[in-house]
């Protein structure tokens, strides 16, 4: 009797079988690597191996944009069509690419040799227009209209500037090895302290989360440290998907040990045995960099004894940057956000106490412990200590990541970036990302701190500063934001599920100059309903930029009005 060889799929998913349902996303990624998509038979084999109901497996494939249950090529070209890239003719690039290959956007050739798709923000805004190509040894499209191409093996260059270089000390010159990074001095010092002392130091530093919500990091750690239940988890939220945000990409690519050290310190502080780095699927070129750094850290004894870290790769869902949706995704489910409370510190991933921090937040921790909170507080302001990374993109001379102390003004930041491109006048700045708000030249002297921005009604968010010059038609920018949120709403709660769609429809009309009477009131009711009544942060901020634009430029939303650009 001969034993049948295991199928290539079984061999590929075998490492994930012990994970059960939590292995579903890794297994689906493995299947797609073989087939380019997930055929029914493969989905059934995965369901059986991981003991997940068939309908649930299908539900997960359907949720994530980067999983396909229809024949799709292994060779996919994705053209970013979100805000920063749209300013640089992304739609034209997509159209020309499609025309050249005889495809419509989203279509696959009959022989499955190529798929071309539009994509939400790829986190490459400083390199706009950006294109991501997968599954091709040799690029077929390099040099298309000056677009920046990335692939598994082709990483984007880093553009790092600023008036201080603390967090970004190792950024801008390729990946920093452990030998160059040096010993984990912060971790070493932390281990000479008690966990309580570490948490007290982080609290004293005044560090707040850099992902957008600005929650005090030390308070979060303290909550998880005191929570009942084990094991406890530390998660690095590297699902950087807020349009206009790309700082975490640069930090992870150029200085992976800083974030790993930050996670080690957090784990020691709360008593966690396991960590995850949940990185968005659109950053495949960072995964081997992190894997290598994790291996270096294991070799040096920082990992692998009482704490270790696993990388999880997302699959195209902005909502998974929301912490509870991210937990669901790690657990192998659709990325639906959970109702809070309970909060992650007591009921996080797998229902266990969890600390989840943004990449930049974790990168700040080693320095705070190594040098002390007092030293950290020497930079910045009383209420916003330290430095901050800003993602400057759009119509400026020098786009890139800028590290500055809290307290510089918007004007100073824009001057560092060489001012508005081609000597044009500033029309607007989108602050905080798609979920942010617009500023104008009136806000140039606002200090970039949590307190000053809050007073000016602007969110710091994830540090997005996207610049629009005087010639830009803001209605097109808003249209692009509307499409983003409609595409990314998870569909769980009614205000966001339907509101993002209605908002998109109205913004489409406005961009086409086909405004209906009462569209202003409709847009406002939809916007406030999403803001007030949505279940999670996505819906609560899906109208934020639109509502701010309605205040600044009410004329854009009224019948019979034309934009400033059209009048010229």
């Amino acid at each position, binding site marked *: 009797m001969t034993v049948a060889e295991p199928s290539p799929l079984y061999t590929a998913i075998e490492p994930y079988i012990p994970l059960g349902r939590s292995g579903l996303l890794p297994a689906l990624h493995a299947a797609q690597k073989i087939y380019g998509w997930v055929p*029914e038979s493969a*989905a*059934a084999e995965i369901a059986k191996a991981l003991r997940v*109901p*068939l*309908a*649930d*497996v*299908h*539900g997960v494939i*359907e*949720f994530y*944009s980067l999983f396909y*249950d229809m024949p799709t090529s292994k060779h996919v070209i994705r053209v970013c069509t979100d805000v920063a890239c749209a300013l640089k003719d992304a739609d034209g690039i997509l159209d020309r690419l499609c025309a050249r290959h005889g495809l419509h956007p989203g279509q696959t050739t009959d022989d499955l040799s190529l798929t071309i798709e539009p994509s939400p923000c790829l986190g490459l805004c400083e390199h706009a227009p950006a294109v991501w190509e997968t599954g091709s040894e040799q690029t077929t499209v390099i040099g298309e209209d000056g677009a920046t191409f990335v692939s598994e093996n082709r990483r984007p260059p880093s553009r790092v500037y600023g008036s201080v270089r603390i967090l970004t000390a190792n950024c801008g010159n390729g990946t920093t090895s452990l030998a160059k990074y040096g010993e984990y001095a912060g971790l070493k010092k932390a281990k000479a302290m008690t966990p309580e002392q570490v948490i007290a130091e982080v609290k004293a530093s005044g560090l707040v989360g850099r992902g957008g919500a600005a929650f005090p990091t030390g308070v979060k750690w303290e909550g998880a440290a005191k929570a009942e239940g084990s094991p406890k988890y530390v998660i690095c939220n590297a699902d950087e998907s807020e349009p206009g945000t790309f700082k975490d990409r640069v930090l992870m690519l150029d200085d992976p040990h800083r974030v790993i050290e930050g996670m080690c310190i957090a784990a020691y502080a709360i008593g966690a045995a396991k960590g995850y780095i949940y990185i968005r699927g659109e950053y495949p070129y960072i995964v081997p960099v992190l894997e290598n750094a994790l291996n270096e850290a294991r070799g040096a004894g920082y990992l692998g004894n009482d704490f270790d870290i696993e990388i999880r790769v997302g699959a195209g*869902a902005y909502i998974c940057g929301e912490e509870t949706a991210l937990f669901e995704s790690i657990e192998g489910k*659709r990325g639906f956000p959970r*109702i809070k409370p309970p909060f992650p510190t007591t009921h996080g991933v797998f229902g266990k106490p969890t600390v989840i921090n943004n990449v930049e937040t974790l990168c700040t921790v080693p320095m705070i412990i190594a040098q002390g909170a007092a030293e950290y507080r020497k930079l910045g302001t009383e209420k916003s200590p330290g430095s901050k990374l800003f993602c400057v993109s759009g119509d400026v001379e020098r786009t890139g990541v800028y590290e500055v102390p809290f307290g510089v003004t918007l004007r100073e930041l824009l001057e560092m970036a060489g001012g508005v491109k081609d000597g044009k006048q500033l029309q607007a700045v989108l602050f905080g990302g798609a979920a942010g708000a617009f500023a104008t030249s009136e806000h140039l002297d606002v200090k970039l701190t949590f307190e000053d921005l809050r007073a000016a009604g602007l969110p710091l968010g994830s540090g997005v500063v996207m610049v629009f010059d005087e010639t830009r038609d803001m209605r097109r920018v808003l249209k692009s934001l509307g499409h983003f949120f*409609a*595409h*990314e*709403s*998870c*569909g*769980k*709660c*009614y*205000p966001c*599920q*339907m*509101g*993002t*769609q*209605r908002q998109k*429809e109205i913004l489409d*009309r406005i961009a086409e100059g086909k405004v*209906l009477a009462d569209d202003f009131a*409709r847009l406002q*009711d*939809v916007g*406030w*309903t999403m*803001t*007030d*009544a*949505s*279940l999670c942060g996505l819906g*609560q901020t899906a109208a934020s930029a639109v509502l701010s634009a309605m205040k600044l430029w009410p004329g854009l939303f009224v019948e019979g009005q034309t934009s400033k650009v059209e009048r010229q």
Partner: protein
Amino acid sequence: MTVTFTMDGKEITVEDGQTLLEAARENGIDIPTICWHEATTANGLCRMCVVEVEGWRTLQPACVVQAGAGMKVQTRSEKVVRARKTILEMLASTMDLSDAPDILTMMDEYGADASRFPDAVRRVSEVKDDNPMYIRDYSKCLLCWRCVQVCADDAQYTYAINFEGRGYETQIGTFFDKPIPETTCVLCGQCVGVCPTGALKPKRQYLLEQGVSPEEISVLNTGRKKRKNV
């Protein structure tokens, strides 16, 4: 243990752990709900039951938020009414509410305009008539999740249905869109029982509504067809 708080200015005392919705219903205060059902886990997703709690940034779903000592709750504030009315108007522009009398009554109560959103893309799909027990008309589905929940851990543990798509394009579906007889469905009928909008309907009721006479239905003998083994 009890907690005392105020709702619409009225002082209310309830058992610790009770939700605002339970507290309201015990005290004759009407809070509308769509997705909530006594037999399913509350998910707080329709947001019709949202209320304003003093000091809280956003409106809170009464079906899951527990009463807390000293809470000041408004169940009909301006914000609450705007949210409920807009949600109803968006529903009316999205789906076929003709078999959802409770929601039509809510629309009257809140003065919601069914044609508030002209040119809205509606969710339309063909009636799925693929088994002898029930039909699925997802043009009438408002995604309350009840059917998925009773098919899974809230009742039957069958896991025959789940979600397709995402966001506005979400729909309830089977594994690779298989007809019901080819799924794990055991035709228990619990999903039909909890559907609030007629999206899931007994096959016989559907046929009668289509004008098929009881005699013709008997000839069709749909009720006794054996489920195909897969």
